[in-house]
């Protein structure tokens, strides 16, 4: 039995908890992660508690895929390096109804740059039912500028099939010669 992890990230409200719940076999739990934050403007260290979404997918041979959702608050990005260590790949969810979704995209790609280089990313654009712009083509354009061409799907995080397809696309990106075992 082995353990693996998949990382879900994106701004608050993008649908990370919902997407993890759609895939997870167990009810999603928000784990408390205590961390020591070194505030550059202060001499002291402060301890903060951040909520980390956690879900689980079990495979036939009892291998476990742990699903982690990063805390959306950008000020906790110090945790991201630790969290992604050894991860299989990244699911990035972007909320299309926020003020500047393309900036969100750039921010998260930058923050996870190294992890993406080592693995792959699949991008789900959520809440397109509420805001149809920017269009997917604009996301592709933005990604191309950064030398990336990952799957970008219109995803409703409440729809299991959407989330599943996004994850499948991530797996094929990691290994295009893949075939599901029947």
């Amino acid at each position, binding site marked *: 039995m*082995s353990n*693996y992890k998949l990382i879900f990230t994106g701004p608050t409200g993008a649908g990370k908890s919902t997407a993890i719940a759609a*895939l997870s076999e167990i009810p999603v739990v928000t784990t408390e992660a205590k961390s020591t934050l070194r505030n550059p403007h202060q001499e002291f260290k402060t301890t903060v508690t951040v909520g980390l979404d956690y879900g689980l*997918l079990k*495979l*036939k*041979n009892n*291998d476990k*895929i742990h699903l982690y959702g990063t805390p959306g608050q950008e000020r906790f990005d110090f945790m991201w390096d630790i969290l992604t260590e050894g991860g*299989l790949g990244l699911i990035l969810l972007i909320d299309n109804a926020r003020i500047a979704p393309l900036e969100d995209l750039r921010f998260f790609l930058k923050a996870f740059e190294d992890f993406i280089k080592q693995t792959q990313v699949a991008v789900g654009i959520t809440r397109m039912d509420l805001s*149809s712009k920017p*269009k*997917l083509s604009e996301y*592709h354009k933005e990604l*191309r500028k950064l030398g990336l*061409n*990952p*799957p*970008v*799907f*219109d*995803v409703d995080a409440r*729809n*299991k*099939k*959407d989330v*599943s*397809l*996004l*994850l*499948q*696309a991530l*797996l*094929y*990106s*990691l*290994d*295009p*010669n*893949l*075939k*599901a*075992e*029947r």
Partner: protein
Amino acid sequence: MTQSTTKSALRIVAVGMDKPTQRLLEMVFNGPGRGEYFLIEQLEVAQACIFDLDGIEAAKLWANYRQQYPSLPTIVLSLNHHDVAGTVFVKKPIEIEKFLKALAKIKQMKEEEAATGDLPQISVKGQPAHLAPTQTTREAKLATEITVEQEEEALHQYCGYHSDINPQRSEEVEKIYYDPNNYLQGFFEKAFAFSQQLETGGILIEGLYTPMILLSEKNQLLCGCEAAENQLRTMTLLPLSKSSHLRMITLAETEIQQRLATEKLMAQSLDNFLWKMALWTARGKIPKGTDLSKDVVLVNWPNFTRLVLTPHALEISALWIANPYSLIDTAKMLNIPQRYVFAFFSAACAIKLAFIDRRTDTRSPASSLAGSRSEHPKRNLFKRLLARLRGGE
């Protein structure tokens, strides 16, 4: 239709059918039916009948009809199989070829009847004629076995049945091409390209079974009727002739708003519409002139959560994004039937996501396959995870 053909044309009445389907019948009669059939309104003077068994009061209507016209040659249309004695059955969605065969059969019955003065009996399989089952039993069947049946059927409708070809044999290669311009697909691709150039407004297409408006900026297709799917599929297989009076008209924003306010228009995704139309038309073939030995460029991943997903489309996309391959090599690399690669390519071409890179030299298959990527160390894990995701959908 010309006067001369009208004279000998078979007068056919449509019963239990909505206007769009009637319009579609007319297009079939005038197009591939070559004017041998003619749609009329009155049952009294009809020489044959096409009866839609899926209408609301279909069973009652059918009983009345059979009582009044017990010997009128009849084609029964339905989504579910109906072996009604003395009728010719055509399953929906209507396949043009099967429908034409049914029409020919009806015509032949008419001719035999004229010759012998007798009513020919067809396909009565020793059982009494039964009327259409009630609405409830039909729904019950729809929910169970029919869905599986239809899924398999849909797969064939999207990808065809062709077996793999040997690219070295020109007589085999010829068979995998189709010309989108001979079908509605070509017309819609032009309309789509045209609408993309508009800054505001859209393109109205007239002459189909229902008016359609293309709004490429919004990725929307506005359409006058709800259940356009079946009719659309039948339409896509109709070879376009000069007699199909299709027109493109530009609409200003205000005109569109006006139509939206006064007509019942349904919006659907324009991408998915064009994608589906290309799949239906191509049925596992590829556009004429596609070079089999040159690399495919996939501009970016299609938005698969909102498009018809054909078999292996995710793998093909991932492969092409990582490394361009020719169509033939792609099938070889992934060890999948060529028709799935062809179907996906044709659909992606229709929405301008894929094209053949004409600059690449024709490579020998061996050299290109040699460059294939090595196995990912976690391939086994991915396989199991994929199986889990597919099974749990």
